[in-house]
Structures are given as structure tokens and as C-alpha cells.
């Protein structure tokens, strides 16, 4: 799966599983500040990504996810390795 395919699926997860507004989702959008995802929402995001992509995201790596683009990079990196 190339990065743009990961991005497309991830953005779909954000809309269908987390109920985020598709119009506000950009790679630069910060989950907590721009998308108003609260602390439990971050946990829901991690679980949704693990389910969708079949990857494991430990807490220490999860802390690096601030923006949508960073989430895409993390998942893409895991699928590559």
C-alpha cells in the first residue's frame, strides 16, 4: 500500500469511526487543537487504526501523533517495515 492509499483509508476511518468532519481533515490538522479530539478520542483513534491496518501502536509511539499527517506517517512506516 503506498502512502496516498494509507492516507485515504485513514481519513475514512476518521470520518466513519471517530465521527470527524471530513471538511476539516487535512494533513496539517492537529487532532486535539483543530479536530477537537479529546484524550479518550486519541485512544479511540489508536484502536481504530490498529483495527483498520492490523498494526500495533504502543503508547510511546502514540505520543508522537499530533497531526493527521503524523498518523499517516506512523501507520505507513509500520506497514513498510
Amino acid at each position, binding site marked *: 500500500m503506498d502512502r496516498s492509499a494509507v492516507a485515504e483509508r485513514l481519513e475514512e476511518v476518521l470520518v466513519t469511526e471517530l465521527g470527524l468532519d471530513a471538511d476539516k481533515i487535512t494533513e496539517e490538522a492537529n487532532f486535539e487543537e483543530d479536530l477537537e479530539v479529546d484524550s479518550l478520542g486519541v485512544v479511540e483513534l*489508536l*484502536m481504530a487504526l490498529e483495527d483498520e491496518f492490523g498494526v500495533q501502536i504502543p503508547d510511546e509511539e502514540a505520543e508522537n501523533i499530533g497531526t493527521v499527517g503524523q498518523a499517516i506517517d506512523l501507520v505507513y512506516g509500520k506497514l513498510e517495515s
Partner: protein
Amino acid sequence: MDNAVDPDGAEMQNAKITGWGKCLPPASLSNDDLAQIVDTSDEWITTRTGIKERRICHVDVSDMAAVAAQHALAAAGLEATDLDLVIVGTCTGDSTIPSTASKVQEIIGATGCAAMDLNAACSGFIYGLVVGTNMIRAGTNSRVLVIGAEKLSYHLNFADRSTCVLFGDGAGAVVLEPADSETGVLATELGLDGTARSLLEIPVSGTQGERRPPDPETAGITMNGPEVFRRAVTTMGDAAVRVVEKSGLTLDDVDLLIPHQANTRIIDATARRLRLDRDKVFINIGSYGNTSAATIPVALAEAIEQDRITPGDVIVFAAFGAGLSWAAATVRWGDRVTPVATSDAALPPTDRTAMELIQPNIDFFGLGAR
């Protein structure tokens, strides 16, 4: 023993739920009430938890447990003297010596039968259901009362806004009786991860260490919310899927999920793992908050009252709690969804408001910065 068949292939006796009852104390504490004393708001609590109000008990756990038990006995058409085992799932009992079950047994008049407390925190009701079921399957008991009852308000620290909004008081009960193997409890799973026990705890709540005076710093509930959330969804969801599979059923066969009511978002995430639409999930957390071991039997009683269960339905119970414990069970409901009789058992009335009832907690723990 998943399908109630013994190794020789002979059909074994199973256990089914023949009575159900609940007891919620009358005093209600709303989110707006809490916002008067805690730095929080109805919007904050509602979006994060789904809770709108919770009940605060003016009497004891055993009083609520006994009222729920009397309704369950009436629904089953039994007298207390018919019982041969009483299990009280609780982590907030009246006393540790003797057990809370002894008080419940005394109140309902089931003198002489076996009675015990069972502490698996929020998983306590399902743990009790499984123990009671297997006592019936083993042939040692035939009329078992399983109660989940809690008075978590006793431990609420209103200086900790992350936990004090979550919990409430209540009790629910079921009666278990023998059944053929096709109905009743089909498959069960109990588990616990002791390495995660500090994620949700009352740091000082027993005899650990040396005797010391009560300390507000260690006598309240503490919780790592995000981590408990993540583990709850995973363990509760996975256990629910496994008990459905162990029952020889598929997720499409599930008619109703009755999950532990800790957080609407945990319930939603669990339902997603089970691929269940929300109309197949029973949710009443808005009215009562997290009443620990009481949530599932209270929800079951309300599901029946609201005609959400019909004969032959496949119901899944799933819970997680401090420990971290988890539990799940599939039940094929029998042919009766109406009570044999009704009881007028009720708690003594009170004029005290929820705000008055929590004042001793405020006096002990203090209040946080606002």
C-alpha cells in the same frame, strides 16, 4: 465446560435466569449539581461518559441488595427459604466481617443457606453468575440468588474531577435455576490481569501495610482513564466475541448486548468490535452512571421491563473492572419474560438530597480548585 455436555456425552443440567430485580436509591445527583462543587460541566461529563445523573444511597449496600433480591425472588415465583446459595458481587460491602451476604440473607429471610461475597469489582455480577451456574451444573445447588450491589458513593473524592463524576449506587439481582442444556447460560469467560491492578484502585482500602489513620490522599478512587479505556474495549470486546464463538453461534445471532455501563464510548467501541448496531445494545448509563457490579443486573431488569428481550433471545453480558478483571457470558433466554409475581419491597423513604448525602465525602476529602 462450554456446552453443558460432560465427557461421556451425557447431557448435563444447565442454569437459567428465572427471576430478575433491581433497586436504585431515590436521591439523584445531576451533572449540574456536580458542576456547583467540581470544576466540570454537564457538557464535559456527557460527551466523555454519557452520564447525566447518578443515584446516591441513603442506606446500606445490603439494603439495596435485599430489595433487588426480593423483586428477583417474586419474579421467579420463589420464597427466600427456597434458596440454597446467595452470592453478593460487591467491592463496597457493608462490612468485611461478617460478609455483606450474611446481612442480605438475614434481611430476606433465607436463613441457613450458603452465602458469600464475591469481589471482582465491576465484573462481579458476571463472576457470580458463572459461579452460580457452575454450582447448579455440578448438581450441588439448585436455587441460586446472584446479586450485584454497590455503594461507590462512599469512596467518591470530589476533589478529583476525573473520577467523582463517574460512579453511582444501586443493586440488581437474578435467580438461577436448573434448565435443559438448550437454554440458559451457554458459554462463559472469566479473566483478570493482575499486572494492571494499579490502573484503577483505592490505594488504601484494606489491611495492606501497617494500621494507619484514614488519609484523604489514599482513600479515594484513582484511575488511569485512557489506559483503562483502551484495555476495557479490547478485553471486554474480545471476551464477548469468544463467548459467542464458544456457544457455537455467530455475531449475527446476538439479539442483545448488555454491557457493563462504565462509559458510553467504551460501550460504542465494544459494539463496533462485535459489529452490532446500537439498537442491539442496552444502554442506561445516562441515568445511573457506573454502579460497578450492579450495572448488568440493573440493565437486565430494565431491558425486560422495556420489552427488549423476547423468549429464545441470545443475550451477551460483558464487563471489565478493577483488577483488571473481565468477564463475559452468552445466555439463551427461556420462554418467560414476565414475572411470576411482583414484590412491593422498597428502600425506606428519605428526605435527604444527594447533595446532603455527599457532604461527609466533601468534609473528608475536601474539594479541588475551581
